[in-house]
């Protein structure tokens, strides 16, 4: 009887542990994509500013919004993390 109770308790802990690991992996994976995306946005913005320095104002404006939009993906991963974790 004691073994059965222990097994049930461990199964619950295992479920909690696995859901935490899954949530962590989901958040980590959700942060990789935006990292790559921000790199692409900034890299291309730097290239554009180097080609046309006089347009750096509008380019930086667009770059800032692009970065913020890409960052939103990481925030959605963050929401998913909390929802998965319960």
């Amino acid at each position, binding site marked *: 009887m004691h073994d059965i109770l222990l097994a049930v308790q461990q199964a619950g802990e295992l479920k909690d542990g696995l859901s935490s690991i899954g949530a962590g992996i989901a958040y980590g994976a959700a*942060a990789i994509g*935006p*990292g790559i995306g*921000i*790199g692409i946005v*900034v*890299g291309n*913005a*730097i290239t554009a*500013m*180097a080609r046309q*320095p006089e347009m*750096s*104002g*509008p380019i*930086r*404006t*667009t*770059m*800032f*919004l692009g*970065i*913020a*939009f890409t*960052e*939103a993906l*990481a*925030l*959605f991963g*963050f*929401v998913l993390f*909390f*929802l998965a974790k319960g």
Partner: protein
Amino acid sequence: MTATSMSPPVAHESAIAAQLARHALYVAPAILIAAGIYGGAGAVISAGIGLVIVAMNFLASARLIAWAALKSPSAVQAAVLGGFLARLVVLTALVFALAQVNFIDAVVLVLTIAVTHLGLLIWETRYVSLTLGAPGLKPGVIGRSEEE
């Protein structure tokens, strides 16, 4: 190519971030009322904190980029990528710490952060697209901020 030739003295990012923060104030009542209907006083406080976090996140990001743009293009790259990671870590730590507080609804908090962030950006993009596409027709937020 020098950093000075690439970076005008006007901080466009800061103007946009200030405009985003102002828009956050405009939408705050609607979000707080919705949160109150959903989850009561705790949800209202959580949503309010979420709005403040979103505004501070935009302002910090803009300040960092504006500062780095005056240095060099490499500094912009480093500041943006480093800033992204740093802000994500700070945000995670902040939300984890707040989630430990009894009256904070963590789900409302993170949902407010994500939805408000995206909503404000979409709102702002309409202005910026008009400003860039037809500057003569609608000077827009950047022009107004420079005049101020």
